[in-house]
């Protein structure tokens, strides 16, 4: 196991470098001159422009710029944006919002998706089972963008149950955006749980448990559920990374000052350092949670051995 984790960690290095370089190169290709844009209506003097270009390494070729960036990064320096604010401070400001949003979304996945999946899986082909199947297809088909607007209009504006935007009301203001963000994964969790449970209920050990006279709920909860939930838990774990990167639209519509909205604004304002810093962080999260899940898989299912 230790060797497996070490090898996986080593494999993440080229992926991280590749992803950050890709984004770095794309940001480098962004049109316009960000330094000139800084001055606004009053053009900066040539001396100031030259000094700023030098400070941000804008005169170096792409690869040199990237190497200098990674050099700073390895010393814990994410650089500064063009207004002199450290990128690390920006990330520290917006990251908690996105983490909270992702956690709320995960909570919905477990609460609604898992419960619906279990109930559907126990009674296969029942009315509830078909309801879960059809509604999960419908939910998956609604684009997040549409779902965000419709729920904002319906539950925020018309019914007034939830705040329309912002984070003023603490955890409560995360509920609606969290549900919207979770919707697609929620439907998937319900389906995955249902399929997995229904498959396990046909297994030999379940028949044995029933044959020795255990009551139905004990068979389901103690025996079947524990095995059926392994793929679900791993999906939910890996989903944390995906949700954090997928929050651009949700955060924009609900005006949450999180990573997604920040990176969107940074792309528009050509704040290269911010874009590269946040994207690299997102890729890291994504890889990290996938690794955790793979290791968790072996812990939960002793049949799986990685060495």
């Amino acid at each position, binding site marked *: 196991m230790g060797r497996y984790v070490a090898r996986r960690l080593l494999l993440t290095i080229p992926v991280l470098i590749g992803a950050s370089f*890709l984004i770095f190169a794309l940001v480098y290709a962004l049109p316009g001159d960000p330094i000139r844009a800084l001055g606004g209506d009053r053009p900066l003097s040539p001396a100031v422009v030259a000094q700023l270009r030098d400070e941000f390494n804008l005169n170096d070729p792409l690869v040199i710029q990237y190497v200098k960036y990674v050099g700073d990064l390895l010393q814990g320096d994410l650089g500064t944006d063009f207004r002199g604010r450290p990128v690390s401070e920006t990330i520290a400001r917006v990251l908690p919002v996105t983490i909270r949003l992702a956690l709320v979304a995960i909570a919905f996945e477990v609460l609604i998706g898992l419960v619906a999946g279990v109930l559907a899986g126990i009674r296969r082909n029942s009315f509830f089972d078909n309801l879960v199947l059809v509604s999960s297809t419908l939910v998956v088909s609604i684009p997040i963008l549409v779902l965000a607007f419709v729920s904002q209009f319906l539950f925020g504006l018309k019914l007034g149950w939830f705040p329309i935007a912002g984070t003023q009301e603490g955890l409560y203001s995360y509920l609606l955006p969290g549900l919207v963000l979770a919707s697609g994964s929620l439907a998937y969790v319900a389906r995955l749980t249902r399929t997995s449970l229904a498959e396990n209920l046909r297994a030999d050990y379940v028949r044995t448990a029933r044959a020795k006279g255990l009551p139905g709920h004990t068979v389901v909860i103690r025996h079947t559920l524990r095995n059926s939930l392994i793929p679900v838990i791993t999906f939910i774990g890996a989903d944390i990374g995906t949700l954090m990167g997928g929050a651009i639209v949700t955060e924009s*519509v609900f005006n949450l000052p999180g990573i997604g909205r920040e990176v969107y604004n940074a792309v528009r304002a050509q704040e290269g350092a911010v874009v590269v810093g946040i994207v690299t962080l997102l890729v890291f999260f994504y890889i990290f949670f996938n690794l955790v899940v793979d290791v968790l898989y072996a812990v939960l299912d002793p049949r799986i051995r990685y060495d």
Partner: protein
Amino acid sequence: MTDQQQMDLRKDEVEAGTQTGLASPSVDVTSGRQNSLWSDAWGELRRNPLFWIGAVLGLVFTLMAVFPQLFARGAHPRSCDLANSRATPSAEHWFGFDQQGCDYLANVVYGARSSLIIGVTAVLVVLVLGVVVGAVAGYFGGFTDGLLSRLADIFYGLPLILGALVVLRSGVLGRGTFAVAIALAVFGWMTAMRLVRSQVIAVKSSDYVAAARAMGASSPRILVRHILPNAVAPVLVYATITIGVLIAAEATLTYLGVGLQRPAISWGLQIDAGQDLLRSAPHLVLFPSLVLTLTVMAFIMMGDALRDALDPRQRA
């Protein structure tokens, strides 16, 4: 990872000639005509109401994309009268009017074309990239596979919308319909690649491939004639669903301001323009959202039904 090692082991065995499969003749010779996977699948599909809902919706929106004038009830999207600005739906004008006083039904109907073109084009590019890279990685294995799989990992780590956002903003692909399609494909080809790769690995060590190789078939021929046909079913399911997913992604990018630009007619632009008027004229967001959702749903339903039909494990 373990699966792959097992597959690689099997491949090595085949190549070393220790287990060519010639020694164990197939006993599973069934008499009489057997239904093929596809005719079985069609029989299954025909009885699935979700498939028919998806297919009818898909057909309607395809017709709408090709002949929008059939659906616009005689109105033209660009003939507008400011006197009608933001008028609500009526018997004459089912979807009402937008800010500029243009008939909204006509505008929504004419929006189908760009969405469908982008969805279908992007999926075609995804398929080409995914099949080529996946087949090469799976068939040659070893270093080639490692390199291409890491490449896929790199793109996997970047969220689709975020990657496409940066590419489109940077302008390296230019602007317009095809730029959006390519941007979506560039950040969306990895799943197709992994699908094809795993299918190729699964069948490349089978007896008939060994037989083809023994008869002197070249690698490209083995790949195209003997291995890739096995990957058609899962790839078809994936492609159908992905058309829907990418249509939604296009609307999102356009809404974020980096996709299609005015004066193009697009659902994303309509939602974007309507969002500021959500309080006073909610129908401006509602109608394009509804039609967008139905379009996405059409493809996802067809893909879902196709998967159920093509997966024999689901059959009773």
